[in-house]
């Protein structure tokens, strides 16, 4: 459902568009020609807009339809551009509700209109473009109009996200993580608007048909990327789950640590690439556990020095497995050092303070928090409040206090995906496994005299 604020926002956008259209002169060229060209451009817009490519976030889709709007800016003027953009209202997309259509239509119209006004303001001439001595003026005005169009589009979408943000944010529900790249792409494809307009001089409406091919190749490439990216994430998750199947209690641990690490990364405003990398590192931080013999992981009593050493080795085992993946080096460092402590008493290297890489300090907090809020065979799950208390206690000794603070702020805003309350497994063969991540029950090592 859409919140009341979002409806108000959509209403405002519609009103603003209507008022602006009202106050803009339609132009000098309202001839039968005008209507024919308008309908053709609207058709082009409809074709593009009805076959959008999915983006990675699944929340928005991408289509090169802005080319049609911007062609209208040059050929027919601002009001016509608004009329082309408004076609989004009736685009043939399944699963689009009225509020979505209204918003898309109003957004298309408003950004088309603003682009048209910019074009006129910068002395762009409306009509079939002529590239004489003043061609650079025309190209410059068009580039500015395209920039305004992209900005208006993304700005309006951003507004909707802000309003829906009051509700709990789910993973991947933010704006496209590669927003800058999306902006650049939109700007690049906007050039098709001018190309359509100039080909129109030569071949009239066939210009719209000719550009369909490159537009669809562009759409194909965008869609392929999103598809591969999703397949990649899903495969990675499945493989991590396979690693976790051995231990009933830690299922979903990697996924939740990944979520927590991403949450902290967003809170401290890490860039999109690094956020993606830390989410992957969080997902994979414990793969090295597979290299620890099962008897050691399952031992309930104190550990011998050798057994403890085997556990201490697991981050390095993890590194060994993932080293060849084309990750940022930072993600590798995060996996390697996620059991270091700020006071230098951690493993495997015994780093202290800022010797510990940032990724590792972040993963350590998310890791410990998930361990405490999950049920273990030897204890019940702690409440979120208790676990937060433990994190605060551990700040400056085990955890980086800045990371703990960032986590707590983000936690209040976004909530935590608690694991399904662990119904005791009916499988009787499940054995007690000590959780090496649990800061409240540190591993005990036999003192060798």
């Amino acid at each position, binding site marked *: 459902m859409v919140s009341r604020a979002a409806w108000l926002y959509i209403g405002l956008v519609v009103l603003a568009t209507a008022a602006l259209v009202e106050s803009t002169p339609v132009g000098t060229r309202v001839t039968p020609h005008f209507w024919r060209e308008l309908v053709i451009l609207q058709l082009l817009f409809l074709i593009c807009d009805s076959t959008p490519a999915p983006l990675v976030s699944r929340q928005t889709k991408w289509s090169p339809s802005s080319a049609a709007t911007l062609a209208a800016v040059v050929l027919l003027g601002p009001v016509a551009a608004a009329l082309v953009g408004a076609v989004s209202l009736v685009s043939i997309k399944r699963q689009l509700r009225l509020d979505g259509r209204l918003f898309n239509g109003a957004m298309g119209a408003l950004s088309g209109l603003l682009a048209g006004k910019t074009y006129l303001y910068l002395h762009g001439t409306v009509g079939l473009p002529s590239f*004489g001595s003043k061609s650079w003026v025309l190209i410059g005005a068009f580039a500015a109009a395209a920039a305004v169009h992209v900005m208006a589009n993304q700005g309006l979408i951003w507004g909707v996200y802000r309003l829906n943000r009051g509700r709990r944010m789910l993973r991947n529900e933010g704006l496209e993580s590669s927003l800058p790249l999306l902006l650049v792409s939109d700007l690049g494809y906007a050039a098709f608007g001018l190309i359509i307009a100039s080909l129109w001089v030569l071949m009239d409406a066939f210009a719209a048909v000719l550009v369909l091919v490159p537009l669809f190749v*562009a759409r194909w490439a965008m869609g392929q990327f999103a598809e591969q990216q999703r397949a990649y994430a899903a495969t990675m998750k499945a493989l991590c789950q396979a690693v976790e199947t051995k231990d009933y209690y830690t299922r979903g641990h990697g996924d939740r640590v990944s979520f927590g690490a991403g949450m902290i990364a967003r809170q401290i405003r890490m860039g999109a690439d690094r956020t993606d990398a830390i989410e992957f590192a969080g997902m994979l931080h414990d793969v090295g556990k597979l290299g620890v013999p099962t008897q050691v992981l399952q031992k309930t009593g104190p550990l011998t020095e050798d057994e403890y050493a085997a556990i201490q080795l697991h981050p390095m085992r993890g590194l060994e497995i993932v080293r060849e993946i084309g990750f940022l080096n930072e993600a590798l460092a995060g996996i390697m050092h996620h059991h270091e402590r700020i006071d230098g008493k951690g493993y495997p290297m015994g780093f202290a303070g800022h010797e510990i890489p940032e990724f590792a300090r972040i993963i350590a907090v998310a890791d410990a928090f998930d361990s405490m809020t999950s049920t273990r065979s030897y204890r019940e799950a702690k409440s979120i409040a208790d676990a937060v208390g433990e994190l605060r206690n551990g700040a400056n000794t085990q955890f980086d206090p800045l990371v703990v603070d960032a986590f707590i702020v983000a936690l209040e805003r976004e909530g935590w995906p608690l694991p399904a309350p662990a119904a005791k497994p009916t499988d009787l063969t499940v054995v007690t496994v000590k959780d090496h991540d649990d800061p409240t029950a540190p591993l005990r090592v036999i003192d060798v005299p």
Partner: protein
Amino acid sequence: MTGSAMTGPPSSERWSSWQALDSGRLLLMSTAAMLVLAAFATATISVQHVEKKTALAFGGFIALGELLRLALPGGREAAPIAMVGGLSYALLINVGPSNGHTASGSPQPASALMVIAVAAIGMMVGSLPHIAAGRPAGLTGMCTRLVAIACVAFAFRPAGYALVHHHSWEVALAVMTPLVLLGWLVDTVVGALIRADDVGARFSVAITDEIRVQWALGAGVGASVIIIVLGAEVMGLAELAVFLGPLLVTQIAFRRYAGIRATYLQTVRSLARVTEVAGYVEAGHSRRVSRLAVAVGRELGLPERDLLQVEYAALMHDIGQLSLRDPIPGGATVLVSEPDQERIAGLGADVIRQAGVLEEVAELVRCQSWPATGHKPGPPLGSMIIRAANTFDDLVGASTERERSAAALDRMRQDQRGYNPTVVAALSEVAGRRLAWRL
């Protein structure tokens, strides 16, 4: 990087094809070199007749395209922007009104040899930064593109040009479309010929693979060429600058797509090793099985798409063992009972199916234990390949002893129920080559 496992080691038994490869490449390069020589010879004579601004703009465009090469899936390299630049210069009819005052004067349209000279200079300039950065110069790719551009230029000039020069855009479109297609075809066929020799695939398979990978890019290049040629009549050389925008961002999209595919493969390769780290299978087992399986698949003429699935399935074929409480001694699934083999295969397929995007791979993993299930319509070829490769590696491992290899192959030959004779024959071929190469 992408295709490092797809390109097997060179083999001594294939010396004939190695020589063919060398001569194929040699032929391509000498053709290109002769074209360039002829082009330079004429260009120095007739350079004053050619409009320098246009030549410079297109040459720069080609150089930029050569600088921004694109890695495609399967370890291919393309330079779509250079191709667009070269083909549109070859087909250029008229440069529009912004240059109107000069175009009405004396300058002749560029001859085919002039086009080749400009393209060659552009490519050389564009490849200099690659050489300076220590990357391969990509000579084969450049020669392929140059030959394709030359074919189109010779087909179009002077006859085609004379035909379309004074006619409407419909005629130009009708003449240019087949020519653009010709350029793409030459590029694809030459590329497939070179690749077939590189990876040891049949030409018929290589050409289908090439078309499958290249069609989208090819369609984009072709349409861009036509738009640039027609647009330049209206917009003049500014068209090139404007069109660079969409071309660059499309190239970014392709690059991201190829990048994520490469990371995907790397990740599966790495994570498949968890079974080794956990002590379920011998070190290097998954990777050896996948290499062997891909080589056998290629020997049997599988297309690249199926090979990728075989590679994924082979990498993950033992993932089901993670669900076992205790590792099988030595990790060799060939030594456990058939019901157990089936159980492990089923568990592994379940894990892979969880991903939701690798249904076919999961099916390949599940069917690798078909003798136990009595698979009715016959198991998929990929499963038979993986089963044979797995058995071979379980029995032979990293060893290079001829006797062990021969014994393993004999064992599979005698078990007609468990191993497909055709697959075993291909495996024996591949294994023989592998030994020859190692010794």
